[in-house]
């Protein structure tokens, strides 16, 4: 039984067919590189996974059960955590406020409920440290942090709240070289814990190191779905994407 199984997914935006019947599945703890040029349908696919869009046609099964229309919040409750590049954190708020946004911990004082700030600071610090994420101070505003740090906080948040599938939208774009390394290590760590990861990227070399399977989309069609263990090098994947090589 796959963690997530999608069959014949179609999505149209007016006259534009963004997805023309795509099949996709991912197993527990698996890391998949989702590749393709701009307009290939990657972001439409992950937005359907997120529950942000709903497919016009096709079936989605989560842990073997068919799932229907859901909101992004419902998807998150099911264990699907999507980390968008710029839509992960509120810059003006502190790390711990972001970590618990929408899932705040409260404490009762008489008839009133207040934020349990101490507990949330403590949990967020420990949860991030446990994944090897170094954030100097969880009290500081997110705007002070680098792009890479922001990505890792969003991932750490998903892991802490029990995500079974992490969808990372271009996590290594616009991030310094050292931080790419930190993000790749985090993906490996997360996968070890049995969490599946869909890694959406342009840069084949980043994906190739951590992914065991590659799914390539082109103009709304899946043109390749190959395993690294079948001997596909980064160059092979690149050649397939550029149309210079067929799937073996």
């Amino acid at each position: 039984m796959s963690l997530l199984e999608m069959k014949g997914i179609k999505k149209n935006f007016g006259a534009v067919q963004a997805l023309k019947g795509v099949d996709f599945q991912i197993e527990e703890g698996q890391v998949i590189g989702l590749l393709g040029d701009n307009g290939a349908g990657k972001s439409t696919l992950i937005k359907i996974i997120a529950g942000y869009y709903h497919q016009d046609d096709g079936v989605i099964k989560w842990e073997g059960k068919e799932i229907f229309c859901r909101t992004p919040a419902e998807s998150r409750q099911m264990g699907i955590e999507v980390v968008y590049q710029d839509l992960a954190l509120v810059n003006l708020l502190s790390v711990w406020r972001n970590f618990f946004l929408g899932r705040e911990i409260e404490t009762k004082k008489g008839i009133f409920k207040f934020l349990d700030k101490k507990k949330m600071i403590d949990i967020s610090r420990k949860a991030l440290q446990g994944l090897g994420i170094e954030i100097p101070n969880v009290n500081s505003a997110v705007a002070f942090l680098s792009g890479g740090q922001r990505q890792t906080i969003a991932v750490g948040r998903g892991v802490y709240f029990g995500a079974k599938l992490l969808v990372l939208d271009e996590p290594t774009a616009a991030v310094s070289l050292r931080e790419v390394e930190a993000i790749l290590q985090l993906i490996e760590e997360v996968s070890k814990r049995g969490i599946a990861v869909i890694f959406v990227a342009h840069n084949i070399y980043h994906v190739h190191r951590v992914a065991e399977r590659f799914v390539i989309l082109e103009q709304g069609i899946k043109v390749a779905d190959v395993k690294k263990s079948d001997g596909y090098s980064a160059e092979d994947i690149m050649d397939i994407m550029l149309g210079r090589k067929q799937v073996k």
Partner: protein
Amino acid sequence: MRTESVLQLLRFKEIGAIIALIVIFAFFEILNSQFMSISNLTTILETSAELGIMTLGVNLVMIAGEFDMSVASIYVLVPVIFEFLTLSGLPSIVSMIIALLFAAGQGFINGFITTKGHIPSFITTLGTEYLWLGVTLAITGGYFVSLTKGKNIIDIFSAQIGSTSLRLSILWFIGLTIVFYLIIEKTKYGNRVMASGGNPAVADSLGVQSWKYKTSAFVISGITAGLAGFALFGRFQSIDTSFGTGMELQSITASVIGGTLMTGGYGSAFGAFLGAIILSSLDNGLVLAGAPTFWYQAFVGIILIAAALLNIRLKTSLVGG
């Protein structure tokens, strides 16, 4: 830069307003030694109460990333509705509840139109500001409305405290400031209001429905404008539309002086409190100094810009660029 290092030591949202207040107090004390007398300080507090109570709500709307321009009309219309209901024979407590329900309801309409119609709240509330101003003029015929049957209940907002010259409105202002501070900084609701103002798309993607938090801020702002209107009604025992003139801009000014960002997601109830006090001290100090009253507006302009310049630097050092 020296100012930067000073700000490093005093890193809290309200520091800009505190500096402005100290400068203004020092300036007017030099001009007139009566300025810092107890009786004058109570006068300043008393005249700041109505603007201040209104500002707390307007400030919350700004933290939620929106503007509320309709408060100036609501400030007058809510007491007018109250007066007309008591005259029609309804008990004054019932009249007050209905008037406040109206204040809350119009706030909901402001929020709903803004968030669901996807238009800037500046436009929505400018529209409703005109709407309710017109309605107020129509039902009062443009005349003063005097406080009659509801005097007893209005007293809970504006009666004098014992034999002092202080009015209850000051206690409302201070009490509500503490309540708003707790709501913004210490509650789940406040956390989500800040998030909805700071980045509604992120809030939405985390399941925090930003439109609800924005809309609720308008509801609260309507209620505080109504409460401020009751305090005003009690103080003057009569009211007409001219009392509200410019109050929407003054409350935004007070919020900005207090450190709240025009772009949302960041602000402080204590800052708004200080902002309102600063505006009334300016007014008061200029009168004591014997300056013609039109200088008030000139000074407000200068203080507003100076405070905004200081606050934006402070904000950068507190929560980044």
